[in-house]
């Protein structure tokens, strides 16, 4: 074993190293590796689930907004002012008779 005369020896001490390795080694290396990899796989799956869940939340929110907007427009259409004519109504409506002023003005020109 090395002595303390080289306190800051830059090389590992093989005796202490081997003894500590034996003392700290928990064994069952492959089982631990398998456990970590299985957990990593779960994390990957969970992260994908989170992404999909996020998309689903956005989709539901968008659908609700569309439904609300559609409901609003339909409701507004049903309660629209009755006096407001649409383009087809205006085209199909009978023409209005000329105003009396216009008739007078035409007779003056004719004279």
């Amino acid at each position, binding site marked *: *074993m*090395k002595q*303390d005369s080289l*306190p*800051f020896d*830059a090389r*590992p*001490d093989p*005796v*202490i*190293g081997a*003894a*500590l*390795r*034996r*003392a*700290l*080694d*928990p*064994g*069952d*290396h492959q089982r*631990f*590796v398998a*456990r*970590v*990899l299985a*957990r*990593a*796989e779960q*994390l990957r799956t969970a992260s994908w689930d989170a992404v999909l869940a996020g998309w689903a939340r956005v989709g539901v929110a968008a659908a609700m907004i569309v439904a609300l907007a559609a409901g609003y427009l339909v409701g507004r259409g049903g309660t629209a002012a009755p006096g407001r004519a649409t383009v087809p109504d205006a085209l199909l409506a009978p023409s209005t008779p000329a105003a009396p002023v216009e008739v007078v003005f035409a007779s003056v020109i004719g004279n």
Partner: protein
Amino acid sequence: MTDPPDPPAPLPQPPGEAARIGQQNEADLVAHALAGDRAAFGTLVERYAATARRVARAVLGDPDDADDAAQDGMLSALLKLEQYDPRRPFGPWLLRIVANAATDRRRRRTVRRVEPLDPGLVAGGARPDRTAERRALAQRLREALAELPERRRVAVVLFDVEGYSHAEIADVLGIPEGTVRSEVFHARRRLRALLGDWKEDA
């Protein structure tokens, strides 16, 4: 603390020069892992699992807690892989995350689970065979290690067990290199005394 049955010799880790040689390879592995290559991440876990577990155990003592912390650290590293600088060695970067995970877990732990020492061991009782003797020495070493400050424990494990340089350990612990040298020195002094006593007892 439980003492597991004699484990098979751990796979050699890539410390020091070996780590530097494998650095490029590891940068490639990280790049592949970032791209979703599960086998690449598996290779990194396989390569560093033993070191991460020992470092976590040096911090926490309890092997189950240490495994949980090592796992937390490795998964945390997976989530932070894009922050890794491929020009630097991967090992110290990973072990810093693992050591932090272990430290966090130790802080959260409200009740410290310490099993009492074997009375025969405390009394220096008879050691029936070599396996029992090795287990007893390991137990005494863990107890001695537990008496050291946390930073000192991690420093000596990274230096003497894992073969990292003082500079790399300074990177892991976030302290100056000179402080690492001092921590390793003090830890060794305590552990050498213990090992010396053990030899004399034997």
